[in-house]
C-alpha cells in the first residue's frame, strides 16, 4: 500500500475562504480542485447549504468544483450525489438516504440523450406531430418529478434547462422544419421555465444559458460523455459551478445589498473638479462616453432588482451634485442612490458610514472603483467589503459588473422594487430626527401605522426572505426554507404572524415576523425578527404586544422564548428584558425567558396606530 499524504495542518473554513475569494475561477487546476474539495470535506464545521445532486448524467465531477467555488463565496456545502440515472428512485427514497441528508436544495440535471435517446436519434425521421408529442412527454415527466419532489421534500428545487445542439441533425435546414430541433428545444425550455414559475419552490437552473455564455463548442467533451456519461468538458465545469453558486447564494439570502460606486472615470470619463461638468465624457456619440452611459444603465437596472446604489467618491459635494442636476442626459439620477458619501475622507471611513446609515453590514457592500490604490486600501482595511477594480477599458465595465455573483435574487419581490425609495425615506427620517427636539415628538411626528396578520400563501416568499436575510434584529436567527414556511401555514400548532408598516414618508412593506409554537402547556416564541431599517421606533413593541395578546388568547400558562446571541444580533440582547420577560436560564449559547399570564402586560407604543386581523 502506498502511504497516504501526511495530514495537513488544521486549516479553518475562514482561512480557506479568504485564500480563495480573490481567485478567478479559471485559475484552479483540476488537481488543486480535487485536493481543495477533500480539505473542505474534512472540516468539522456545520454546512451552510445541504445540496443534493440528482440526474441521469454523472455529477460526481461537478460536485467538488461546486464545493470549492461555494467556499470561495463563504458557503460550506454538504453534498449528496444520488446514484446515476436514479432521479425518480431517489425521490421515492425507500432507504431514506435523501431524507437523512435533508437537502436545502435539490439540483436535477437531465440529459435528453439519456432520457429519450431512442427517440432523439430518430428525430429527423419523425413527423412534426410526433416531435411535439415527444416534447410534451418530456415536459410531463418533468412536471411530475417536480410535483413529487415538492410534495415529499421541503427543499428548493433547481431544474436544469436543456442546451440545444450547436449542430442540428438537419443542419441549417432545421429552421425551416416544422418542429425542428431548434424549435423543440426552445419550447421545451420555455415549458420548463413556466412550470417552475407556477411553483414557488421550483426554480429553473438555466444550464442552456451558461453553455451559450461559455461557448457550446468548448463546453462539451464527447470523450468524457462516452467514458463516464459526463457531457461537460473540464474547462466548462467551473463556469457551470459558478452559476450554481449564484443560485445557492440567492436561495440562502446571502447576496450583498448595496453597490457603492466611485464617480470620476467610473460613472463618467474625466474628473469633474478639473474638466468641469460639460467636459465630462458621457454618451454623446463618443465611444468612451457611450461605454460610461451603458455602465450607468446597467447600474440603474440593479435598482429594479432590489440592489441599493451608493456613492463613495473623493470630490467636492457641490461639484458632484451639480453633475446630477445639470446633466439631464445621465441614466442615473440623484434619487437612484440610497446614500452619497462625497467628501475628502478616506474611503474606508466613508464605507463604514454608508453601512451605518443604511443599517446594513459591511459584508453587504460591493465597492466598484477605477483606482487600484483605493481598492487595495479597502481590501486591506475592510476585507468584508467585496472590491471590484474596474478594467482599464470602459467598454468592459458592464462585464465586470455582471461578473459580481453576489447580487443575485431568485425572484424580485415588491419590497425589492421599492427598496431604494424606502432607504431614501430612511435617510429623510434620520433628518427629521435631527430636527425634532426629543424622541417622543419625533416618534409621534412619524405617524407610524402597522397592520398585523397571519402570513398567507401570497406572503410566503417575503416571509422566507425575512427569515433568510435578517441578522441584527433577530432573536434566534433560525433560517427556514421556503418549504418550512409553507408548512407553517397549515400546521395547527403554529402561528406565523407578519407585520406591515407605513408612515408619513411612505410604505415600509412587510418588515417583521413572529413564529409562535403551541404546546399543550405553553406558547413558545420560535422566531421573532424585524428588518433593521424599522428599528428604534417602537414597532418591535407593537409586535411583542401582539404576541402577548396571542399568548393570553391561547389559554396557555406560560410564554417561553429564547435569545440565541450571534455576532450580529447585538441590538436585541436586552429586548426580552425590556419587554417585561424574566430570564430563567442562561448558558454560553442561549438565554431562556419566560412570562406568566399575570405578567403579560403590554408596553407603551401609543404613537403607533395598530390594526390587527
Amino acid at each position: 500500500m502506498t502511504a497516504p499524504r501526511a495530514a495537513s495542518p488544521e486549516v479553518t473554513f475562514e482561512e480557506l475562504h479568504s485564500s480563495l475569494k480573490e481567485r478567478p475561477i479559471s485559475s484552479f487546476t483540476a488537481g488543486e480542485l480535487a485536493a481543495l474539495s477533500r480539505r473542505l470535506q474534512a472540516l468539522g464545521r456545520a454546512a451552510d447549504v445541504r445540496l443534493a445532486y440528482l440526474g441521469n448524467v454523472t455529477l460526481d465531477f461537478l460536485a467538488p468544483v461546486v464545493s470549492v467555488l461555494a467556499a470561495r463565496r463563504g458557503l460550506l456545502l454538504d453534498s449528496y450525489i444520488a446514484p446515476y440515472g436514479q432521479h425518480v428512485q431517489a425521490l421515492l427514497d425507500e432507504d431514506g438516504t435523501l431524507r437523512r441528508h435533508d437537502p436545502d436544495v435539490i439540483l436535477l440535471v437531465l440529459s435528453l440523450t439519456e432520457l429519450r435517446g431512442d427517440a432523439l436519434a430518430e428525430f429527423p425521421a419523425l413527423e412534426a406531430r410526433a416531435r411535439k408529442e415527444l416534447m410534451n412527454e418530456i415536459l410531463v415527466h418533468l412536471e411530475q418529478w417536480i410535483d413529487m419532489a415538492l410534495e415529499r421534500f421541503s427543499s428548493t428545487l433547481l431544474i436544469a434547462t436543456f442546451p440545444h445542439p450547436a449542430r442540428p441533425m438537419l443542419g441549417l435546414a432545421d429552421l425551416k422544419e416544422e418542429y425542428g430541433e431548434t424549435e423543440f428545444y426552445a419550447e421545451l425550455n420555455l415549458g420548463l421555465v413556466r412550470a417552475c414559475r407556477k411553483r414557488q419552490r421550483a426554480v429553473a437552473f438555466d444550464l442552456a444559458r451558461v453553455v451559450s455564455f461559455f461557448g457550446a463548442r468548448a463546453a462539451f467533451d464527447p470523450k468524457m460523455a462516452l467514458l463516464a456519461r459526463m457531457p461537460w468538458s473540464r474547462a466548462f465545469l467551473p463556469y457551470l459551478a459558478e452559476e450554481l453558486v449564484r443560485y445557492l447564494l440567492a436561495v440562502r439570502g446571502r447576496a450583498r445589498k448595496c453597490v457603492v460606486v466611485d464617480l470620476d472615470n467610473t460613472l463618467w470619463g474625466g474628473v469633474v473638479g478639473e474638466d468641469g461638468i460639460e467636459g465630462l465624457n458621457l454618451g454623446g456619440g463618443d465611444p468612451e462616453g457611450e461605454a460610461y452611459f451603458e455602465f450607468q444603465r446597467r447600474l440603474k437596472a440593479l435598482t429594479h432588482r432590489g440592489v441599493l446604489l451608493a456613492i463613495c467618491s473623493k470630490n467636492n459635494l457641490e461639484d458632484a451634485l451639480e453633475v446630477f442636476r445639470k446633466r439631464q442626459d445621465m441614466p442615473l439620477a440623484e434619487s437612484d442612490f440610497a446614500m452619497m458619501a462625497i467628501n475628502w475622507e478616506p474611503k474606508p471611513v466613508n464605507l463604514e458610514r454608508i453601512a451605518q446609515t443604511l443599517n446594513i453590514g459591511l459584508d453587504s457592500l460591493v465597492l466598484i472603483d477605477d483606482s487600484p490604490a483605493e481598492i487595495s486600501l479597502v481590501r486591506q482595511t475592510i476585507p468584508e467589503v467585496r472590491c471590484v477594480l474596474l478594467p482599464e477599458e470602459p467598454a468592459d465595465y458592464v462585464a465586470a459588473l455582471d461578473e459580481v455573483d453576489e447580487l443575485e435574487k431568485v425572484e424580485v419581490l415588491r419590497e425589492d422594487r421599492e427598496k431604494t425609495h424606502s432607504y431614501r425615506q430612511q435617510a429623510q427620517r434620520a433628518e427629521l430626527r435631527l430636527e425634532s427636539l426629543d424622541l417622543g415628538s419625533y416618534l409621534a411626528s412619524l405617524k407610524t401605522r402597522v397592520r398585523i396578520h397571519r402570513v398567507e400563501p401570497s406572503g410566503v416568499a417575503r416571509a422566507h426572505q425575512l427569515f433568510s436575510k435578517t441578522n441584527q434584529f433577530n432573536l434566534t436567527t433560525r433560517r427556514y426554507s421556503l418549504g418550512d414556511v409553507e408548512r407553517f401555514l397549515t400546521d395547527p400548532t403554529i402561528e406565523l404572524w407578519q407585520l406591515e408598516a407605513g408612515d408619513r414618508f411612505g410604505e415600509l412593506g412587510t418588515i417583521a415576523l413572529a413564529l409562535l409554537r403551541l404546546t399543550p402547556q405553553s406558547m413558545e416564541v420560535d422566531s421573532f425578527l424585524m428588518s433593521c431599517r424599522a428599528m428604534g421606533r417602537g414597532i418591535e413593541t407593537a409586535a411583542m404586544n401582539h404576541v402577548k395578546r396571542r399568548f393570553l388568547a391561547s389559554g396557555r400558562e406560560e410564554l417561553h422564548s429564547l435569545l440565541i446571541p450571534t455576532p450580529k444580533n447585538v441590538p436585541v440582547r436586552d429586548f426580552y428584558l425590556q419587554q417585561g420577560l424574566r430570564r430563567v436560564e442562561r448558558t454560553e449559547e442561549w438565554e431562556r425567558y419566560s412570562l406568566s399570564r399575570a405578567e403579560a402586560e403590554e408596553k407603551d407604543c401609543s404613537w403607533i396606530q395598530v390594526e390587527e386581523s
Partner: protein
Amino acid sequence: MADELSRRIRRVLSQVLDLDSDSIPDELHRENVDGWDSLNHLRLVTALEEELGVRFTMREVGEMSNLARIREIVEARQ
C-alpha cells in the same frame, strides 16, 4: 527534463489520489491504491491532460493504470 516530467506527473497523482508526492514508488499501480477508483481515474486523466497540455485517446485512458505506463504514454505524446 525526464525528472521535471516525473515531478509533474507525481504532483497530479498526489493531488488527485491524496498521496504523499515524495513517497510515490516507481511501481505505483492502480490495484495498490485505495482511492484509485473509476471516478478518480478519469479525474486523474483529466488533470494530467490539463497539466501537460495533451489529450489522451480513450484507448490510452484505459491503459493508464500504473505510473510506468502513464509515463510511456505521456512521453509518446510529447
